[in-house]
């Protein structure tokens, strides 16, 4: 069964460094999303992406964040200058219609 994959599973970085989180959505899906979950809290929407552009973004998704679909398979989230409060689990999701399928997540730890 096709699934969303994410790499790396765990990323440790120092405050102020840039990180790129990678996702491979399900191959025939058209809509892509990033969510984050701070430990012990609920899952929060960051951004949605369709037809090579951002469809919607939350207030969390400020100028430090960017997304890209550099080729036909990858979907990336870049955080330009990480802060301690960016430490969280980041989930990529994709959908063809209304059901969103999530990847296993990348645990980002900012020290």
């Amino acid at each position, binding site marked *: 069964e096709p699934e969303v994959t994410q790499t790396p599973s765990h990323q440790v970085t120092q405050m102020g460094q840039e990180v790129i989180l990678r996702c491979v959505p399900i191959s025939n899906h058209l809509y892509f*999303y990033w969510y984050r*979950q701070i430990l012990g809290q609920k*899952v929060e929407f960051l951004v*949605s992406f*369709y037809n090579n552009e951002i*469809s919607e973004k939350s207030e969390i998704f400020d100028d430090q964040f960017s997304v890209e679909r550099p080729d036909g398979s990858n979907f990336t989230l870049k955080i330009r200058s990480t802060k301690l409060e960016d430490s969280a689990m980041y989930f990529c*999701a994709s959908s063809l219609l*209304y059901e969103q399928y999530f990847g296993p997540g990348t645990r980002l730890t900012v020290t």
Partner: protein
Amino acid sequence: AQTVTQSQPEMSVQEAETVTLSCTYDTSESDYYLFWYKQPPSRQMILVIRQEAYKQQNATENRFSVNFQKAAKSFSLKISDSQLGDAAMYFCAYRIGYGGATNKLIFGTGTLLAVQP
């Protein structure tokens, strides 16, 4: 703004018994979708079941079923014949139905389900 509320932070059930997790939501929309996601300790988000607001019939997936009360804005999840593998955090989620498939999911705060052997 749409909100999703899960009022039970933790629940416990005996193996083979039935448990119901509660979810309420607030929206002024008439066209929307509701979901239950399961998050085991691995923290993977797994789609359990989906309900379209325009459907009166409650969704069912094997041992999982929902009680969708549109007027009351209530969407509870019933797990029958609970198994040890059902132990997880369960999140209720909402999304607007119109506007294509780009709309975000809005999640509740989750209910941690423990299954006792």
